[in-house]
């Protein structure tokens, strides 16, 4: 008898229509997601064209004036082969350097600088752009704009950020940024933009964008980021999807046999219509965005012509078509007097957007085909029936369901989504679409290019050389991974040895007061782990009991920190100290479950103590012991408290979990975005999943789960 369960069956009615509707809705939904991502990326794209144009113009001016003022300090001039002109620009001498020099030399050079025609032209042209193309010109305006995060990094340390709320003491907010600019000219540090755009590294853009004049210098890179929500195309595609769903109504009148196949064929047609119309839209938007920059180009040309810096349009176009950093430039032609976009150059971007879309759409299509098939076969009715008949049950569990979904499901999905973005730590911009970086974080964590470069890929070598992200002086992912596995392995060995040993001893009825030993030996498991970790750290530390013990038996030089291997093993031991009682309890209950007859038979056959233990008892309790060892090893793998508090967060002994925690809690690691930390978490999740599945496969645990 089932309490409170209704027995009602929904009739199979319009299933095919609803199936079509559901699957088209799914198609539309994923299309919408793409639309959202792409609309925001396109805004970036526009900014990028603007910036390449500006950068290339400044390069033109630079080249026209030829050479540079010699760099007197000499410290920064390390020219490397194959670097972009931009980095050359910074290192040799540039507007940036010019300012640095002028600052350090005092007022006289400031005058000199003003007279320097190169600087004047920079100021003039960039000033023109700033006032005419909506870039913020002064502090007041800058504050009202929605800005990308700006972080000031000196050496490896973050010393300033544009975000006010999440800053610790000693950090500077954007309100003081203009002061920072001035300071930075004196102290010579670089303001870097750590966010990554859709396919561009902005740090280089921002460094280059430092020429306007004294008030806008030193890497205050600001790029407007209007938040775009694609209303018009959204409504259009929604209506289109609805209309396309109506095609399915006539199917009702077809014979039963071919219904489903006709339905699937129609779905394919619908998907193709949606695809072609959307890809046309995509191509058009890419085109129109680049078209919007046209007036800027012709204005720039006019300015340069006035100054006599450029003679022909062809020459200007040549400069414009150069790539900046890792931004691919849009090239222009000037056939009929005006500036036109080179079709092949535009095609590159159109294809880029289209490829990502095609991939997403393909997955969406397969999904919606599945949904269609499932609901056409009556899957929808099944769910309706379930929800109606079991409504009381769902009342029972609905709160738990919702809470588990909100508190665990959402964060989990959020982590995975976040890992494909460069979401900044300061959360000033939560539009994930705009910060989509694909697999960049994973590539960075796994040092893919580093490995490729070692194998001998030329392109990877270049990337490794030019990227600051590979120069990190703390353990990389692989080191931490190996460390984690070694730690888990040793710790599990110790805890299983101790646990089984004590269980076997305490299983003997003739051992006196074994109940008391059992209670005492369980203590490590029940004492809070954070206390255990701190306790062991203190006990092994300078004034600890172990130090005193060793001193009294003559080992005065004893120092746990002296030898890294010993220290590492001590971490394993402390972790095992916490976990062995669990193994002990499980083994003990397993041993007590072995029937007397088996024990007697073993004794009569004359089996020795070791033979009995290893050939009879342990194999008998294997089904209980192995899953417990698995559980215990997972806990050890995840034992954040012990490792983090015992080592005091020491980098050299990090395991994967404590490393993730470091990204969040340690100020000096704030150069990493939340996206990076999320990607790290996701990788740990995958590793753990593989470990569990592998272990489960080996011990055939899966059969026994229910």
């Amino acid at each position, binding site marked *: 008898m089932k309490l409170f369960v209704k027995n009602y069956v929904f009739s199979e009615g319009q299933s095919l229509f609803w199936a079509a509707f559901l699957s088209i809705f799914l198609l539309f939904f994923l299309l919408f997601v793409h639309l959202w991502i792409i609309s925001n990326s396109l805004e970036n794209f526009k900014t990028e064209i603007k910036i390449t144009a500006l950068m290339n113009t400044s390069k033109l001016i630079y080249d026209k004036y030829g050479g540079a003022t010699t760099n007197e300090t000499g410290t920064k001039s390390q020219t490397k082969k194959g670097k972009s002109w931009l980095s050359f620009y910074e290192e040799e001498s540039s507007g940036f350097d010019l300012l640095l020099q002028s600052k350090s030399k005092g007022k006289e050079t400031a005058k000199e600088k003003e007279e320097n025609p190169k600087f004047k032209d920079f100021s003039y042209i960039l000033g023109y752009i700033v006032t005419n193309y909506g870039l913020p010109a002064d502090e007041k305006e800058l504050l009202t704009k929605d800005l990308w995060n700006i972080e000031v990094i000196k050496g490896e340390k973050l010393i300033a950020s544009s975000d006010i709320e999440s800053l610790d003491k000693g950090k500077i907010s954007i309100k003081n940024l203009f002061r920072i600019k001035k300071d930075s000219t004196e102290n010579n540090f670089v303001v870097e933009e750590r966010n990554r755009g859709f396919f561009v590294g902005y740090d280089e853009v921002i460094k280059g964008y430092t020429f306007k004049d004294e008030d806008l210098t030193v890497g205050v890179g600001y790029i407007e980021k209007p938040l775009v929500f694609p209303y018009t195309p959204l409504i259009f595609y929604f209506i289109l999807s609805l209309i396309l769903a109506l095609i399915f109504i006539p199917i009702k009148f077809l014979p039963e046999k071919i219904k489903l196949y006709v339905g699937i064929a129609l779905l394919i047609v619908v998907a193709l219509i949606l695809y072609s119309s959307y890809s046309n839209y995509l191509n058009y938007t890419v085109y129109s965005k680049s078209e919007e920059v046209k007036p800027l180009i012709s204005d720039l040309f006019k300015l340069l012509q006035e100054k006599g810096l450029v003679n022909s349009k062809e020459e200007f176009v040549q400069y414009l078509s150069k790539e900046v950093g890792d931004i691919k430039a849009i090239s222009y032609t000037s056939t009929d007097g005006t500036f036109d976009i080179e079709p092949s150059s535009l095609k590159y971007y159109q294809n880029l957007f289209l490829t990502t879309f095609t991939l997403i759409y393909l997955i969406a299509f397969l999904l919606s085909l599945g949904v269609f098939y499932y609901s056409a076969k009556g899957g929808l009715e099944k769910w309706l029936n379930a929800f109606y008949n079991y409504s009381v049950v769902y009342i029972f569990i609905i709160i738990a369901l919702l809470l588990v979904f909100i508190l665990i499901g959402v964060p989990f999905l959020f982590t995975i989504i976040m890992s494909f973005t460069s979401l900044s730590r300061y959360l000033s911009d939560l539009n994930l679409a705009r910060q989509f970086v694909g697999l960049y974080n994973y590539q960075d964590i796994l040092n893919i290019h580093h490995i490729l470069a070692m194998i001998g890929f030329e392109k990877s070598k270049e990337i490794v050389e030019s990227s600051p992200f590979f120069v990190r002086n703390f353990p990389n992912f692989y080191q931490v991974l190996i460390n984690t596995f070694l730690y888990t392995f040793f710790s599990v060995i110790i805890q299983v040895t101790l646990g089984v040993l004590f269980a076997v001893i305490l299983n003997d009825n003739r051992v006196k007061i074994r109940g008391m030993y059992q209670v005492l030996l369980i203590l490590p498991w029940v004492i809070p782990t954070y*206390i255990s970790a701190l306790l062991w750290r203190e006990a092994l530390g300078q004034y600890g009991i172990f130090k005193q013990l060793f001193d009294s038996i003559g080992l005065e030089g004893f120092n746990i920190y002296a030898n890294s291997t010993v220290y590492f093993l001590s971490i394993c031991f402390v972790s095992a100290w916490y976990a062995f009682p669990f193994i002990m309890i499980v083994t003990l209950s397993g041993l007590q479950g072995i029937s007397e007859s088996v024990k007697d038979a073993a004794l009569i056959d004359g089996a020795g103590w070791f033979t009995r233990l290893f050939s009879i008892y342990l194999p008998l309790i294997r089904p209980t012991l192995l899953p417990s060892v698995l559980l215990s090893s997972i806990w050890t793998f995840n034992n954040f*408290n012990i490792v983090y508090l015992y080592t005091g967060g020491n980098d050299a002994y990090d395991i994967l979990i404590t490393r993730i925690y470091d*990204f969040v*809690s340690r100020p000096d690691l704030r150069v990493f975005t939340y996206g990076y930390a999320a990607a790290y978490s996701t990788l740990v999740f995958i590793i753990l999943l593989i470990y569990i599945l592998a272990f489960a496969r080996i011990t055939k645990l899966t059969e026994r789960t229910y």
Partner: protein
Amino acid sequence: MKRIYYVLIQVFLILSVILLLLPVLWVVLISFYSRDLMRTIFSEILHGRLHLSSLTLGNYLYILTDPNFLQWLLNSAIVAASVAFVSTFIGFMAGYGISRYQFPGRRVFLISLLVTQLFPIAMMIVPFLIIMSLLGLIGTLQGLSLAYLATTLPFSIWILKGFFDTVPSDIEEAAVVDGANLLQLIGYVLIPISRPALATSFIFSFVTCWNEYAISFVFLSDVSLYTLPPGIKSLLDNNDLSGFAAAVVLVSIPVVFLFMYIRKELVESVTLGSVKE
């Protein structure tokens, strides 16, 4: 021969228990002696210089009059108790529903609950931080409680589901036949019979929150809002070893007793998913 063997076993057990529990013994000992004895307590014992008369409750008095410590104690108690209550109540409802009905989606839900138990909470810190700061709950005890609920809820559901699996549904059916409605069924039948499992779930959730360090350290930046774990850590950071010792003893004792009380159920519950047929 046999006798010598058992004497050796006893010696081995005593030695290993002392060695393994040495840090625990040490911390209990120094919590009862004054600060100046702390650093040399071992040689004091060795030379027989440690007298019972020098026992003192000073450390306890000191820590119990420390307004910070009392505040941490209060914070921890509030957070742990409220999370334990909510988690147990929701776990009770869900555990009953899952145990009694074979509804669609049950298996998926159960497996996902089990899977969440295997993954560390440190992995969730990043999204939690973001969500909580969006909700404006960062740095508050409410936000912390929500994060804790995520860790304790799956286990509570699991424990209570396991409990209801072992109880036949005859009583409930009898009650319904006698005309009890849903609320009466819960109030008069289900809650009374599931009291032991409710206690286990409550204690486990309580202790989990009581002991949690990682999240609270990241979430709470204000010292007056600290819960016990970051608070006790901060005692140590300030080189206050005797205060630390007294605090550790005070904080651990309830946990140790509560855990000892539910230890059997706990071991059964955590291995339930993997061991039980």
